[in-house]
């Protein structure tokens, strides 16, 4: 935790963390929606996108949120109402649980778990639960089909994601996300340490697998069978309106941001810059200058936006997988590939 000059009472610290968590989740989500969903998507389709609300439509999201907030919160007659109403909150909850372990600087983190990446992978799957019960409790066949597809897909792609991070964990020698950042910025590639050792170079296969799995976890387009609008109306979100739909919407893009944060930690060096440049010692985080706590979040945000740009670019370019292709791709291609990646990483790690 950051050491402040004045002592902050416990409630103040808790409040700061809550506000920090909200900012860290909602600000990237808003940025992603405006920059990529509204603008990049429009430009890729040779149109301008929203232009009326605010300069270049920058307040469009405020208008949309205002619109959603004033809509009626409907529940279908035969829906299982309490569960139906809590489902979007569970989906959003997993996003907030994920941001907890993301380090934004040497001291700028919410918690510092020894097994941070394990925790992240675990709570990342909580959203499946929310999606499944949303689909089930809606009392709608489209929702149910969407929820089942989502469950099958998210479980299938959880595996390659975990296996891809294993390569990083083996190479970094730690499951702590801050240690993984340090290992990348303090490391060297075959004696050359000028750039550190971002694992995107040594773990490129793992990076590809991870990004594909993230794409599927977010149900972004090549993998959007669960909400395939031409078949299932809107999948598990079909019956939701107003504020609860908004929560699903925020969760989708906030999770994109958080997974991009995690990917940038695992593969792009996270908040760090190569420690060699400033003569910091990776073994002791105390030697890292304090201004990294301010620069770190900016570096992280830059990397996150680059990764989300790639995710969205792929989303706007490709058509959708068929359900069987989607499962075949995960089980018959990605999982064997990531297992081979782990084996190769382990062998190289031991021999060098």
């Amino acid at each position, binding site marked *: 935790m950051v050491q402040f000059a004045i002592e902050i009472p416990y409630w103040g610290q808790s409040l700061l963390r809550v506000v920090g968590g909200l900012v860290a989740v909602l600000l990237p989500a808003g940025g992603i929606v405006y920059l990529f969903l509204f603008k990049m998507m429009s430009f*890729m389709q*040779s*149109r301008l996108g929203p232009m009326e609300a605010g300069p270049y439509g920058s307040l469009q999201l405020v208008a949309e949120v205002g619109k959603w907030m004033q809509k009626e919160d409907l529940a279908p007659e035969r829906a299982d109402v309490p569960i139906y109403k809590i489902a979007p909150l569970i989906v959003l909850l997993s996003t907030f649980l994920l941001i907890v372990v993301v380090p934004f600087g040497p001291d700028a983190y919410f918690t510092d778990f020894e097994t941070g990446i394990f925790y992240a992978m675990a709570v990342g799957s909580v959203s499946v639960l929310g999606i499944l019960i949303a689909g089930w409790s809606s009392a709608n066949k489209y929702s149910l089909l969407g929820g089942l597809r989502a469950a099958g897909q998210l479980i299938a792609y959880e595996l390659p994601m975990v296996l891809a991070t294993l390569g990083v964990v083996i190479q970094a020698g730690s499951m702590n996300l801050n240690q993984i950042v340090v290992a990348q910025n303090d490391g060297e590639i075959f004696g050359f340490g000028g750039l550190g050792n971002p694992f995107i170079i040594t773990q490129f296969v793992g990076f590809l697998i991870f990004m594909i799995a993230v794409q599927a976890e977010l149900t972004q387009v090549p993998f959007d069978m669960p909400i395939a609008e031409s078949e299932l109306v809107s999948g598990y979100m079909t019956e939701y309106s107003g504020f609860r739909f908004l929560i699903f919407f925020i969760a989708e893009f906030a999770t994109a941001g958080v997974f991009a944060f995690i990917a940038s930690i695992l593969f792009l060096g996270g908040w760090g810059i190569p420690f060699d440049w400033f003569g910091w010692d990776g073994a002791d985080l105390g030697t890292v200058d304090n201004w990294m706590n301010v620069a770190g979040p900016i570096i992280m945000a830059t990397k996150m936006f680059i990764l989300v740009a790639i995710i969205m670019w792929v989303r706007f370019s490709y058509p959708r997988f068929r359900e069987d292709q989607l499962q075949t791709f995960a089980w018959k291609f990605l999982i064997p590939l990531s297992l081979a990646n782990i084996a190769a990483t382990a062998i190289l790690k031991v021999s060098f």
Partner: protein
Amino acid sequence: MPKKPKIPGLLKGLGVTFGTFVDTVTDGAQTVQYPHEKETPPIRARGVIALHEGNCTACMLCSRSCPDWCIYIEGHKQLAPPRRAGGKPRQVNHLDRFDIDYALCMYCGICVEVCPFDALFWSPEYEYSEPKIADLLHDKDKLGEWMETVPEAPDLEAGAGK
């Protein structure tokens, strides 16, 4: 011809969207920002049907041929002064009401085609939406006003008979 290196379709697809992205940023989009700038519709666009009241004889052909029954015509017979001095007064149809309900019209243009007296014309004007659906019923005065927006008929092709 040198053989082009084969680019995987997945990368090619990404290239297409990125190319469009760059084009839109540098040259602007293919679309226009409608209320601020407008595209001129083609001269033969089917925007609204205009009525040249003087040509109409209330023969009801348009009304009867309309698939939606959206043209309402009422008229009565009256006597007009004779053409030549000493002749009998002529009996003519006088048009009392000519309404087109644009809430029903499907812009097939059969009325324009079928009119034997050149009383109906296509106009490319398209901005006549109304907050109330009943206001989409254009009476003959309003239909007459649209005549100002009817473009000149294009010249006949060379060699075409009159």
